[in-house]
Structures are given as C-alpha cells and as structure tokens.
C-alpha cells in the first residue's frame, strides 16, 4: 500500500480546515404564530402546517 512520504505540519492541516464551516440553518416564519421554524415542517410552537393543526405541542 502507498504511504505518505512526509508528515503534514499542523499549519498545513489547519489551513486546509479553515474551509470547514458550519452553515446557518435555513428558517422560515410560521404564518400562524410568527415564530421562526424549519421550512417544510410543522411549527414546533403552535403545531400548524399548511393552514391546519398537525400536532398539539406539549406546552400549549
């Protein structure tokens, strides 16, 4: 099996990893209660999706 000839410096590895970035989750606004929610999912705050109640949240 081929093997690396030289070890990578910390700097080299860290420079490569500068491009590993977390992206912010896309959020949309619930048309019923106007909180931020994930798109294409029932609202965790009020349980609405597509103009109707899908679930009843535990707190409500």
């Amino acid at each position, binding site marked *: 099996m081929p093997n690396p000839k030289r070890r990578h410096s910390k700097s080299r590895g860290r420079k490569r990893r500068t491009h590993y970035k977390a992206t912010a989750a896309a959020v949309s606004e619930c048309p019923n209660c106007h909180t931020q929610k994930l798109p294409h*999912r*029932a609202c*965790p705050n009020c349980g609405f999706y597509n103009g109707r*109640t*899908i679930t*009843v949240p535990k707190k409500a």
Partner: protein
Amino acid sequence: MRHRKSGRKLKRTASHRKALLGSLSTSLLRHKRITTTVAKAKETRMVVEKLITRARNAMANAAAAPAATVHARREVARHINDRKVVSELFSTIVDKVGSRPGGYTRIVRLGQRPGDGAELAVIELVDFNTGSELTGKTETKKKAARVGTYRKTEAGKKEKPAAKKAEASASAASKASE
C-alpha cells in the same frame, strides 16, 4: 448497486421489515394517524396506499363479483394483522375514501426527535383528518392519560409508606422486646 431497486431496507432483514411495515400499516388504518420517523412513514405509505386501492377496487366490483371481495380481503389480510381492521378497511375506510384516485395518505414532518435526532413525521389518512377535529381530540386524550398516571402514582405512594411504617413499627417492636 441499488439501481432500479425501490424501497428502503430500514436496517432490517426482509422478514423483520415485512413485520414492521405490517404493524405500521395496521396501526395507521386503525388509528387513522400515527407518528413515526420520516423513512418509516414513507415506506408505510407505499404499503397502505396499495392496500386501500385493493380494497376500493374490490368493493367497487362487489355487486358484480362478490367472490372477488373475499379474495381481496385475504390478500389485504396478509399485510394486516387484525381482522377487525381489515373489515373496517373494506367498509368505513373505503366509503370515506370514495372516488379519490390514490393519495389517501398525508405525511407532515415534525422535526427531530431528542435522543437520536431522527426526523419524525405524522402520517395520516387524508379523508379522516380534515383539520378541525384534531385539537380537541388530542387534548382530551392527554388529559385522560394524565389522570390515569396520577391515580396510579397516588395509590403506589399510599401503599408504600404504609408498608414501610408497618415494617418500621415491627422492627421497633422487635427491638423493644430485645
């Protein structure tokens, strides 16, 4: 390669998968609405839609060929492990579905489950979940459940301290006699 192979394995053997989808389908037809993971919901949809169509077609031709209904029932019963649910499918559910050309189920994503981060979804029969009836239903169910658990714990509490007291008094008595 997975080319042209439909369906998910759901990390189960063929028999385990068959059993799972049978249970999920039975539950969905019994309760009209179940919460599960998105992957399982989508697999269940594939099974249930076919079952409903099979039942619907059989009932549409029931007058012309009553014997065919028996056959259809038995074919459907291979996937559903409850005879009552089968008869409900062939009567109530078929009536309610009417002439809807497929698409009897609806899947709505709910977000991730704490614990394993699996994405959950509600799968429901469209004709049984029109929207307005839901809020009251779930609330009353939750209330009922709470009352039940409360009573149980109450009874358990009452029994346990009494038993402990009895033990304590017994041990105290034995000590006193010593």
